């Protein structure tokens, strides 16, 4: 390769698209590093505090697409205070100043303000794609700026964000000349929607392939929208109200029949289950079905719908489907690759909706299954052993038994052997979440067998520091380790400090680590940001002798090349 001119090498690099591969290429030699960095268009930053905008722009001046992630994963479960950080503003400011030709911005768990959105919309002439996942801090006014100013907007994809809905007219801010939309997802907006503006927008967007509506879009509007967008591939239904009059319903049926490209269906935020049959004609084409927000769809209506979906690859559902329903899935959806079963009753009424039987049935019936998230009431080692035998191809295996510390409900044993079987059989396992009663033994298995494991979530598990050490020593590819309410302490934390250089981050909350332990870690590893989140009485965490043994409530550490961040709120101590 050294004899080829740079342009040829660059052309070859164009075919290398994955971030991992491009990162690897850049390490080969100085010349490849240089060629790679000038030709890199898509950059992925898994932790926005691992670097800063200036370094990003210095290295990749030609970047067109940026993905940034902010808060740690456990922020999803309210374990991280809102003001912790993850602000996108400095990034947008720096990108705007540098005049880089930004076309795509994807953010996850970041704080986004209307000001940021306004700046974004005005600074990049070719801006095409905005994807916000689990972000917060902005309102529909910010969306209005994006709509009004981004002339070539292709994607506006808002997934599960907390958006202050000012019930304004953001949809009517799309100019009449805007005809380039491909993706429009505003399912997470709570307020009213200007239906007229929406219908006009959809009618003038011939490339629109993905449309996800919010609660405020009723059934008759849905019928009109679908009939002017028969090219739809991905549809999120808003409100699917009870008792539509027969004329609306007939119109809807006719519109649905024309949508022969429809492959993905979601939403049904409010649903009249008996109207689901309108969708039966297109079910045989569906590859993705997300009914996890459709609390009103269950029982026979749900089963009938699923029985039509023989080509399903991805299914997100509520546990009200029951073990029997999962058996229907197992016998119908032979192409299933990803299954997520969410709990429908979070308050804990003890309704045994799904158990180990449903999981076993799925594993037996769906040979292509590689990703699962399963919330259930109970589990057994025997079931997990069977699942491991049936599905050795798991890449992601997340099991959440709703009651912490719950043992095998038949033998009362810990679930070490069951999870052990999973990690032993699934040689490509990259992500694992544990639950139930677990001792250090399960971590011994994980350390021994989970060679490809990159992300591990632990809650209410383990007995001693040995557990955590097994994982840190054994899992060479570990990137993200998150632990809560487990008895791991300073010994495990400090055993091998260099390990954290190979990981993106470590989260430990309600464990046994102490303030002095964390301080020692920070001293040994200046290239780490060791953050203590301390929302309780600050006086307790003072620096005197015995207070050093005070247990740390929340520890979040991550490797970084730019040192301590300057935007941390007062309750975050960076050691």
């Amino acid at each position: 390769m050294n004899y080829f001119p740079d342009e040829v090498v660059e052309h070859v690099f164009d075919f290398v698209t994955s971030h991992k591969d491009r990162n690897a290429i850049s390490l080969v030699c100085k010349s490849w590093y240089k060629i790679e960095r000038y030709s890199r268009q898509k950059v992925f930053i898994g932790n926005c505090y691992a670097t800063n905008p200036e370094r990003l722009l210095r290295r990749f001046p030609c970047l067109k697409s940026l993905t940034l992630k902010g808060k740690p994963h456990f922020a999803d479960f309210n374990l991280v205070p809102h003001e912790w950080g993850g602000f996108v503003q400095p990034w947008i400011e720096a990108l705007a100043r540098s005049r880089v030709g930004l076309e795509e911005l994807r953010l996850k768990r970041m704080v986004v303000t209307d000001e940021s959105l306004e700046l974004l919309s005005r600074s990049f002439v070719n801006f095409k794609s905005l994807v916000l996942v689990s972000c917060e801090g902005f309102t529909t006014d910010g969306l209005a700026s994006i709509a009004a100013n981004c002339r070539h907007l292709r994607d506006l994809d808002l997934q599960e964000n907390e958006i202050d809905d000012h019930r304004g007219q953001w949809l009517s801010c799309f100019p009449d000349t805007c005809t380039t939309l491909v993706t429009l997802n505003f399912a997470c907006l709570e307020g009213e929607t200007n239906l007229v503006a929406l219908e006009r927008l959809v009618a003038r967007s011939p490339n629109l392939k993905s449309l996800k509506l919010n609660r405020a879009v009723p059934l008759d509007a849905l019928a009109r929208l679908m009939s002017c967008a028969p090219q739809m591939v991905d549809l999120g239904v808003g409100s699917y109200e009870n008792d539509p009059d027969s004329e609306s319903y007939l119109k809807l049926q006719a519109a649905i029949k024309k949508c022969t490209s429809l492959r993905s269906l979601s939403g049904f935020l409010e649903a009249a289950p008996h109207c689901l049959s309108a969708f039966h004609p297109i079910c045989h084409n569906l590859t993705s079905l997300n009914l996890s927000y459709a609390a009103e769809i269950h029982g026979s209506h749900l089963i009938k719908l699923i029985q039509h979906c023989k080509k399903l690859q991805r299914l997100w559902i509520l546990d009200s489907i029951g073990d029997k329903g999962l058996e229907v899935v197992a016998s119908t959806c032979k192409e299933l690759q990803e299954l997520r079963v969410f709990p429908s009753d979070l308050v804990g009424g003890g309704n045994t909706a799904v158990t180990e039987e449903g999981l076993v049935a799925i594993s037996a019936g769906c040979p292509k299954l590689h990703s699962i998230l399963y919330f259930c009431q109970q589990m057994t080692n025997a079931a997990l052993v069977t699942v491991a035998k049936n599905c050795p191809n798991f890449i992601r295996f997340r099991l959440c038994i709703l009651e912490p510390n719950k043992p095998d409900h038949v033998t009362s044993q810990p679930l070490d052997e069951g999870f052990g079987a999973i990690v032993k059989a699934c040689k490509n396992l990259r992500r694992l979440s544990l639950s139930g009663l677990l001792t250090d033994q399960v971590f011994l298995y994980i350390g021994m067998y989970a060679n490809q494991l990159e992300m591990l979530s632990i809650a209410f598990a383990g007995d001693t520091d040995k557990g955590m050490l097994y994982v840190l020593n054994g899992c060479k590819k570990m990137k993200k380790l998150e632990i809560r309410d487990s008895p791991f302490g300073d010994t495990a934390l400090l055993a091998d400090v260099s390990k954290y250089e190979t990981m993106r981050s470590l989260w430990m909350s309600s464990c046994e680590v102490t303030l002095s332990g964390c301080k020692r870690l920070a001293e040994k590893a200046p290239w780490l940001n060791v953050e203590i989140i301390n929302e309780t009485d600050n006086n307790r965490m003072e620096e005197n002798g015995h207070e050093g043994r005070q247990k740390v409530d929340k520890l979040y550490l991550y490797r970084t090349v730019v040192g301590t961040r300057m935007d941390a709120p007062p309750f975050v101590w960076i050691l």
Partner: protein
Amino acid sequence: MEKEGLGLEITELRLGLPGRDVAEKMMKKRAFTEMIMTSSGSSSDQCESGVVSSGGDVEKVNDSPAAKSQVVGWPPVCSYRRKNSCKDASTTKVGLGYVKVSMDGVPYLRKMDLGSSQGYDDLAFALDKLFGIRGIGVAFKDGDNCEYVTIYEDKDGDWMLAGDVPWGMFIESCKRLRIMKRSDATGFGLQPRGVDE
């Protein structure tokens, strides 16, 4: 990989089932239940006194489902999903403010935001506007003289006459509204308000 923490534990004598350290199990269970007790506001003294010495006392702990759910961030369902798919009607659906309003004789339903009304008077005005018919709301004030009766479905699924309870209580429990013709409601012994005073 031997660490200091292990030394003493191995020599400790314990009673328990073979293969599983019962006391450790109790300790862990204590940690979890202690969390519930303190987070649900009751004193943690109840937990601490009995548990460490004898396993039996763990049973005293409040095992009710409501207490279990008070551990922060458990089960690990993201907050967006929690807000949007909670089956419990007393939280999400009513809190959102938008309720369905049906009116007898009108073939379609409407949606209105209860949160945007300040009281029954406001609601009366809003209902009148919604259906373009005057006189719906008058029912709240003057039981007898109006063609319509406004009823609502409460959290328990019962249909109640609107206007009996204080506004705050009403919007917290109202799931949907229905405007009935008074003629359909006769025979049910509707007492005009003020009769018993």
